[in-house]
């Protein structure tokens, strides 16, 4: 086992995609933690200087200023906090709901599996963004509601993934022997099934973070995210629309931030997939 992990680690370092991805994500986390120290104008998140509005990038404001005269770079750095918070909490809730449901349905088969399939069919019948918009709109714009809307609409994907993985592991001999030795179901699921499907879950977590950040940005863009003046990236882009084409930097900077972060998670996910489990893609398409 140990050599397996060491091998995976050396593969990871050699895989350029995964490496670039993790560097980007590390950067995001550092930006979020040290935003008050990194930001050239940390007070600009809530303070306005209207005389200074819509300044083009220069030596003082590296990414220019926005419609309120606030420093765009400072707002983007603080926005990283919102982005990470939404993505981490939403994905944690999603995993916490989806993994147990998928495990139980996949392990027992029969009616739990039917029930899961039918319920997730219904959820998957609407594009996630559309359902999330409906929920976020009904509950009103706030970060909590965005998180709720994202997790309520994303768990079926996870349940389906874990279900498919569990099914493919369940008939392996080591599972059968554990059952034959009298291990209770919860023990088989937690100690024998879960570790064997963990790599699939890890890969999906990374790609899921990217997806969630994109969807959260759409909600923010539509005005359903954190209420102003929170420096939410999607909302910043929405605010910048009326100032194109003159204030080109205003929309460009937060858009690049979203792009970079989502790219980071996708690259990491891709890299991890190649390293940990080359058969995941096929397992996912076998779901039906």
């Amino acid at each position: 086992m140990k050599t397996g992990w060491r091998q995976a680690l050396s593969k990871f370092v050699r895989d350029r995609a995964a490496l670039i991805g993790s560097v980007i994500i590390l950067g995001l986390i550092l930006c979020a933690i040290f935003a008050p120290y990194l930001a050239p104008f940390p007070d600009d998140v809530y303070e306005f200087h209207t005389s200074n509005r819509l300044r083009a990038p220069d030596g003082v404001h590296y990414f220019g200023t926005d419609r309120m005269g606030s420093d765009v770079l400072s707002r983007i750095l603080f926005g990283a906090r919102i982005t990470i918070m939404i993505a981490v909490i939403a994905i944690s809730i999603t995993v916490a709901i989806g993994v147990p449901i998928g495990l139980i349905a996949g392990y027992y088969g029969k009616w739990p599996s039917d029930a899961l399939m039918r319920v997730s069919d219904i959820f998957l019948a609407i594009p996630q963004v559309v359902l999330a918009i409906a929920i976020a709109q009904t509950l009103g714009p706030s970060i909590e509601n965005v998180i709720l809307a994202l997790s309520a609409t994303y768990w079926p994907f996870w349940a389906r993934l874990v279900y498919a993985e569990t099914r493919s592991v369940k008939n392996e001999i080591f599972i059968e022997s554990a059952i034959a030795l009298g291990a209770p179901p919860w023990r088989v699921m937690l100690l024998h099934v879960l570790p064997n499907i963990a790599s699939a879950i890890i890969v999906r977590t990374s790609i899921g973070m990217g997806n969630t950040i994109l969807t959260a940005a759409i909600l923010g863009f539509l005005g359903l995210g954190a209420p102003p003046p929170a420096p939410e990236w999607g909302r910043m882009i929405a605010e910048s629309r009326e100032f194109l084409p003159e204030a080109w930097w205003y929309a460009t900077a937060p858009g690049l931030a979203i792009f970079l972060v989502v790219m980071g998670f996708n690259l990491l996910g891709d890299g991890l997939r190649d390293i940990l489990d080359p058969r995941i893609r096929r397992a996912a398409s076998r779901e039906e």
Partner: protein
Amino acid sequence: MRRLEIIVSRLAWFVPTIVGLLIIIFTISHIIPTDPVRVLAGDNATQEQLDALRKEYGYDKPLPIQFINYLKDVATGNLGISIFTKRPISETMWHRLPATLELTFAAVFLSVLFGIPLGVLSALKRNSLFDHVLRVITVSGLAVASFWLAMELQFLFSMNLAVAPLNGRISGFGPDPITGFFVIDSLLIWDMESLRSALSHMILPAITLALPAAATIVRFTRAGVLEVINSNFVLYERAMGIPWPLIVWKYVLRNALISTVTQIGLIFGVFLSGAVVVETVFDWPGIGAYAVNSILQSDYKAIMGFTIWTGAIFLIVNLITDIAHTLIDPRSSQ
């Protein structure tokens, strides 16, 4: 007759799924913290007026009865009246649907046109410079926020270079609606001016929608082709001395595209959610822009109506892809 069995079971499942969808939507619309009757009546309404309205709209009945009534309404195509436009929501949806479908079909066309050949090429030239560059492009295409891409395309091509219109669907009023699809309508009456205008308005939004879909298609086609190339029957055919281009064209493509076709149903979902933001940025008069307007005006009934429509369209498209899949792939009929 396994093929027929699949199709029948899929069709039978269609109605319960729609009902389940309606339960979710109904639940969402009934956990609204604000009282819909109060929104409707305005701030100055008296208690009597509120009660009268509540009775008129059936909000005084118990929830299960309300749900049954809601089901009846939806089954007869009645989605209610928009609070803001005061027009039936179904009517507006029908009116706006052709615009969304026209844009979606254009995006499907673009993404398949570029996605499949590029995917095949990158698989055949695996690990070449071309493959690596394409990988970077597809990963980027999946990471970019569509609303931002839309704005940047507008900024570059409409505002600075002035080679494409900024927004809208056509200059002027457009051809008289026959099908509602401007491209088809202008061809039917042979109006080249309208056709040119319709196409030039469509190009930027279609590219925005098509980019993530094309990236997905490239990746799936590439993976599919690679899997087939490494299979034993291709090795056998090569050993038999069949020319390589013939093997690719006749045997590899056919097998590889099966997985791509099943993806198109899922990709359609990407288009529908993409349409919401892309239509908003480009002022495209489809159902996506309508949904966003309804959101901004807190028009709950319209949002629920849009959700039902999207769900129904998505289900129908996936039903069609499933059926197409059983027809294309002989293995599923055994």
